[in-house]
């Protein structure tokens, strides 16, 4: 079940990515690797506060995995596009052509026969006709080798077309095999992303669920500077705090479709305040909503705060941590006013 959930996480993260370069995923990799190089050592003695740090590193790992998946998909799509011509037949083979040589040969025979008939008749008219017969004979004589040459080049073109077809079919077969392997790589990349998410969750669970281990069990554990205050929610604050946006492509929502959503959440001493500005794709009425909200964080997963829109309408916003560290679902309810959006639900991604 967890694996299935993580797969959805990764899929959602993938949706949030536009075109990704090789450099971009390499940078994401470096950022992840540099996020906390001693994490696996630190978990031996750390308290629950390290969970937030683990979440942060997990976030980097997921970003890298998603960026790499997108890059692989892009590369595969690019290759498919580049080699799509292998599926395309060439222009129809040149027409085989009539038996022009036979026609020329028959005409030449007839002309020669007429030349024989006219012989060396001194009549001026006959001589004129004979001269034209000679012209015909020369033209037909010039045509014969040309037609033979044309036949030869046509045969060469046909043979080359056949060779091309064979080479193309061979390349197409090899491309299909390579594409199948590439697709496996893409699927495995997304599985790796989900596996990393699982790994960090297990790591965080382990540090959350037990008191810090000590090499000398008798000694009292050192106070953890990162221990959460009693006002903090069940999940790390990073799951709520920060700047969040609606993904440009394949975003998830219920109700009116957002065109964009910008949400900012701040925290100070267990108190939250934030603002949301959004535009929706609606056929009539005001597509914009803008409001501020504030309240104390509760020890619950979902956090509900009161809001007030720029035109004075009251309502609530519920922040629901998504299945991934970088996803946050919002559920907005505003008192209904004519021509105004009064409810919205969408999954946002951390900016």
């Amino acid at each position, binding site marked *: 079940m967890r694996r299935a959930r993580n797969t959805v996480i990764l899929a959602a993260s993938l949706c949030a990515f536009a075109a990704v370069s090789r450099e971009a995923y390499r940078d994401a990799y470096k950022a992840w690797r540099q996020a906390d190089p001693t994490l696996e050592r630190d978990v031996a003695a750390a308290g629950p506060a390290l969970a937030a740090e683990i979440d942060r590193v997990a976030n980097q790992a997921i970003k890298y995995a998603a960026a790499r998946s997108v890059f692989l998909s892009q590369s595969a799509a690019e290759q498919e596009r580049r080699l799509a011509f292998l599926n395309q037949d060439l222009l129809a083979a040149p*027409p085989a052509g009539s038996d022009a040589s036979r026609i020329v040969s028959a005409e030449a025979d007839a002309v020669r026969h007429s030349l024989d008939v006219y012989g060396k008749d001194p009549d001026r008219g006959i001589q004129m006709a004979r001269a034209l017969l000679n012209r015909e004979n020369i033209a037909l004589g010039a045509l014969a080798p040309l037609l033979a040459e044309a036949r030869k080049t046509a045969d060469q073109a046909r043979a080359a077309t056949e060779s091309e077809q064979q080479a193309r079919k061979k390349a197409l077969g090899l491309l299909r095999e390579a594409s199948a392997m590439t697709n496996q790589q893409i699927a495995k990349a997304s*599985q790796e992303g989900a596996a990393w998410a699982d790994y960090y969750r297990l790591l965080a669970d382990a540090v959350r669920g037990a008191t810090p281990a000590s090499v000398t069990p008798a000694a009292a554990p050192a106070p953890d500077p990162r221990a959460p205050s009693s006002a903090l929610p069940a999940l790390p604050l990073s799951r709520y705090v920060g700047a969040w946006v609606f993904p440009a492509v394949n975003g998830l929502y219920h109700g009116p479709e957002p065109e964009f959503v910008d949400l900012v959440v701040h925290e100070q001493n267990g108190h939250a305040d934030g603002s949301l500005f959004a535009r929706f794709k609606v056929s009539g009425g005001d597509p914009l909503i803008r409001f501020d909200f504030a309240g104390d964080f509760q020890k619950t997963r979902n956090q509900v705060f009161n809001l007030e829109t720029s035109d004075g309408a009251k309502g609530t916003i519920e922040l629901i941590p998504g299945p991934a560290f970088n996803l946050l679902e919002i559920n907005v309810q505003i008192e209904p006013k004519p021509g105004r959006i009064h409810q919205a639900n969408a999954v946002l991604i951390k900016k």
Partner: protein
Amino acid sequence: MRKLVVILLAGFAWNLNAPAQEANPAPGLAERAAKADANWEALAKGLDAKIQRMLPCDPRLTAAIEEVSQASQARLAAMNQYLQAAVARARQDTETARLALVAEQASARDLETDRAEAEQERIAIEGQLSDLTDSVKRRPSLEEARAKLQSIEESVAARARDLQSLATKRTPLAAALSDLVQARQARQRALEAQLDALALETLRWGDYYAARLARARTECEITNPVGTSRRKR
């Protein structure tokens, strides 16, 4: 759920795809050329039989020759049109294959980079695993995470091996594309030669039919000079 990812990725790949391949630039040209050729052949073969019993000054005689001559011109023009399109398309086909070959060779180099990256990643995980194994001794509840990390390391190692296999598969693909480029170049040259030959053939057929028509008119003048001059008036 993996299917969901695959579907999403497939959709993504679909979006990235360039517009559909260009349509055949010369639809029906081959058929038109073949039809014109058959038309000329039928007329040319039947010409002698058709005019055999006509008197030299029968106007149907020169009309029959002119008809065959026009059919010949139409045949050669249709063939020329077809070959022009075929040559243009062949040049484009050759260039497409050549660019694909260049890109494929670059992809092969990228695969080697990918494999090296996977190996680096595996080494980094090995370091994590070593640290975590030490941590498990102090905090046994980390064992599950350690086992997960171990499985990730195995899958990254498998990725490096898969990339090696993929590189092996892609080598013959590059070779096949190279063969394809050569075959397309040969085809392009053959079509260009065919087009050149057709230009000469067109001139010669023109000469022949001009002479044939001139002879028919001369034969009329010889046998019936008055009739001819009367017609001319």
